[in-house]
């Protein structure tokens, strides 16, 4: 009794602040305990694109109803998927049963030995079910390690050149005759006058700049530039890469430069597109829907054509971006996850919707005959845009799945910047004259990538093997 009285007295002595905190603690505790957890589905699916999620939702609902399963789809940012996926893989923690991964993120999961990759190897299944031959072959390269495929490709993302046909046609220029970049720039020279006296040409032939890492990579891939071999060895410092780097940097420097840096995503960049500051834009299929949404003022003014090549007879397309669907090894329901993967990535309905909603063509070749791809697109002066992209799809360049590719591409971008600074400092604007400096800068990039890779026990083995092969 005495103890109880003492305790009560002690509690009465507490300040009102303590009582507020204690009350809040009790209320929160009750709320947490009483709250019913949300009903979780049988499988989890992480998606980074709300547009993709919108397309998948009706199909998933239908499949759920007919199979008595529930797939929970969660839309989260690319960065959130990256950190949750990698935390799961690094820490052996559960992740979703299906993860849609963007190209810049996926290779991180490919670090380490093949059998330690966090995604299921889908190669044998794809072969067994005849899917491997149905898919556009180069579209598998970013998701493959040592010939094993770890994700279903969502897209192809071939690249064309979108140009201001309203301006060129008014000037009597038929750009479709331009087979090489050199011809393209020469044909557009007459449009580079400065009639409004604002100290820059009224129209510049190409929207490109040496600081745009994605576009540098796209153009270097087009010109058969290579940063890594298919087995993952760095081959950055080579003559072809130096030629390509010197060529594309030469477009941006000097008094006769033919490229201009128009922001691809900002409102002011969109306005500059409408104003016709640049004539040509490097356009992967997905970019078309972005323009339709953000630059409606360009409707009926643009046309598409294959990219001009670096040399006569050279490649007329490239590739930019990409997404895969992977099934993590932590899933307890692989078969069900695989069923969903096939449904979402190989069904004609989704492929059709993918093109109609976001202008992306499917990597499943058997679906390329779909009439949807023949529909004229009023935004591009009624060109049959889908068919044009499909014709280029088999020719897209192969891309490495090296986890070091992202950093290497950043280093190459920095080399481009240093080369441009060198050109401006020394008034050297000719591509050929820039090649020796480009080689020197790429040597530096190669050394840096090799140093980075040498810290990875597995990559170090590859490097050593590469040296052996070279000898």
């Amino acid at each position, binding site marked *: 009794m005495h103890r109880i009285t*003492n*305790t009560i007295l*002690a509690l009465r002595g507490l300040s009102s602040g303590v009582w507020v905190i204690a009350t809040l603690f009790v209320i929160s505790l009750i709320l947490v305990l009483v709250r019913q957890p949300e009903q979780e589905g049988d499988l989890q699916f992480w998606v980074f694109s709300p547009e993709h999620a919108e397309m998948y939702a009706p199909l998933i609902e239908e499949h759920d109803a007919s199979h008595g399963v529930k797939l929970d789809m969660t839309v989260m940012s690319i*960065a959130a998927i*990256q*950190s949750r996926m*990698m935390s799961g*893989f*690094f*820490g*052996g923690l559960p992740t979703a049963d299906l993860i849609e991964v963007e190209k810049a993120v996926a290779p*991180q999961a490919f*670090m*380490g*030995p093949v059998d*330690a*990759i*966090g995604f299921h190897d889908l190669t044998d299944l794809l072969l067994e079910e005849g899917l491997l031959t149905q898919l556009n072959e180069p579209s598998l390269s970013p998701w493959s390690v040592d010939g094993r495929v770890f994700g279903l490709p969502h897209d192809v993302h071939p690249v064309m050149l979108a140009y201001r046909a309203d301006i060129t046609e008014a000037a009597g220029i038929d750009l479709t005759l331009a087979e090489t970049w050199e011809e393209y720039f020469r044909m557009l020279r007459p449009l580079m006058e400065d009639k409004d006296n604002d*100290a820059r040409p009224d129209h510049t032939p190409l929207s490109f700049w040496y*600081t745009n*890492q994605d576009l540098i990579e796209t153009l270097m891939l087009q010109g058969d530039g290579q940063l890594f071999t298919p087995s993952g060895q760095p081959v950055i410092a080579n003559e072809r890469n130096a030629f390509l780097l010197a060529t594309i940097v030469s477009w941006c420097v000097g008094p006769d430069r033919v490229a201009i*840096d128009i*922001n691809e995503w*900002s409102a*002011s960049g969109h*306005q*500059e597109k409408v104003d016709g500051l640049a004539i040509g834009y490097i356009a992967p299929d997905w970019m078309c829907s972005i323009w339709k949404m953000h630059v409606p003022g360009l409707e009926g003014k643009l046309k598409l054509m294959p990219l001009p090549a670096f040399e006569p007879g050279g490649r007329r397309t490239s590739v930019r971006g990409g997404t895969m669907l992977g099934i993590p090894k932590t899933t307890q329901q692989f078969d069900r996850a695989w069923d969903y993967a096939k449904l979402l990535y190989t069904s004609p309905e989704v492929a059709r919707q993918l093109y109609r909603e976001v202008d992306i063509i499917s990597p499943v070749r058997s679906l390329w005959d779909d009439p949807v791809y023949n529909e004229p697109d009023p935004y591009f002066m009624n060109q049959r845009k889908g068919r044009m992209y499909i014709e280029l799809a088999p020719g897209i360049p192969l891309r490495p799945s090296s*986890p070091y590719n*992202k*950093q290497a591409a*950043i280093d190459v*971008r*920095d080399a481009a*910047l*240093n080369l441009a600074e060198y050109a*401006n400092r020394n008034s050297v604007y000719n591509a050929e004259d820039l090649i020796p400096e480009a080689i020197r800068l790429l040597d530096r990039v190669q050394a840096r990538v090799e140093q*980075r890779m040498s*810290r*990875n*026990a*597995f990559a170090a083995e590859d490097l050593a093997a590469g040296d052996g092969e070279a000898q």
Partner: protein
Amino acid sequence: MSTGGVDSRRVVFSWVMLAPFLVLFLVFVVYPLIQSAFLAANQTFGPGTRTFVGTKNFELLISDPVFWKAIRNTFIYALGSLFVQLPIAFLLALALNSPKLRGRGIYRLIFFSPQLMGLVFVSILGALAFEKRAGLINQALDAAGINDLLVWVTGNDAWLEPDWLQQHVMATLILISLWLYVGFNMIYFLAALQSVDKSLLEAAEIDGAGPWGKLRHVIFPSVKPVATFVILLSMIGSLQLFELPYILLESSGGPDNKGLTIVMYLYQNGFDLGDLGFASAIGWVLALILIGLALVQVKLTRAQEVNA
């Protein structure tokens, strides 16, 4: 005996009340700290791969030119904070402390308001303001003819359309952070100025001191402890710079790593490359720098106390 019982109950009660904090502190501070020390001595790659490498991560760090670039950039920013941001904050505080100024409350709110918006929003606005051609800054410079003047002075055509976020990354970061932090630091200085002993100011005035004399002999010594605190707080915050360049430079270190900071380099290695061991080593180097700064603060504060 009974007193002893009450004491032990008090001790138990105290521990119970402390327990939630202690548990969180041990789990989220002490354990990661110990773990990061172990990680710094390991090489980690891929799922669950770890190899003991001793001090190799630190050796590599010392010979890594990119790390030194990150150190250089971070210190440039810190010095920018020290010699640009804080003097402006102090001058603003002086101006807004003047009883002659009308609407002081409104001005204080205006200068402090960027803090309410947060770093991410300020970064996005900053990126828009510093856009190459259409950005507010370039438009203003162009309208005022400053671009032409700069081209004439430097002989460099790049000043016609300066690409702030590509060519002058650190200067741009310092300018954007002015908007964010000047008002914040101004509040500290304002609080210090308001606690300056009025009788000392009156005495100085009677002794014939002018505005500069009062500032030098009364105001500066009075706000010195707060200034020391603000300087060190600002330095420590600057050395931990991450979000601003991360958003402005689209999660990279900017062209040629011109905007790479120590924490960004840590993030790149830890989360982009999965090299948690190397990232931990960077973290420990940063921690040592910060501990060094904290020790300087302790020493300076003690010296001031002794002088007082």
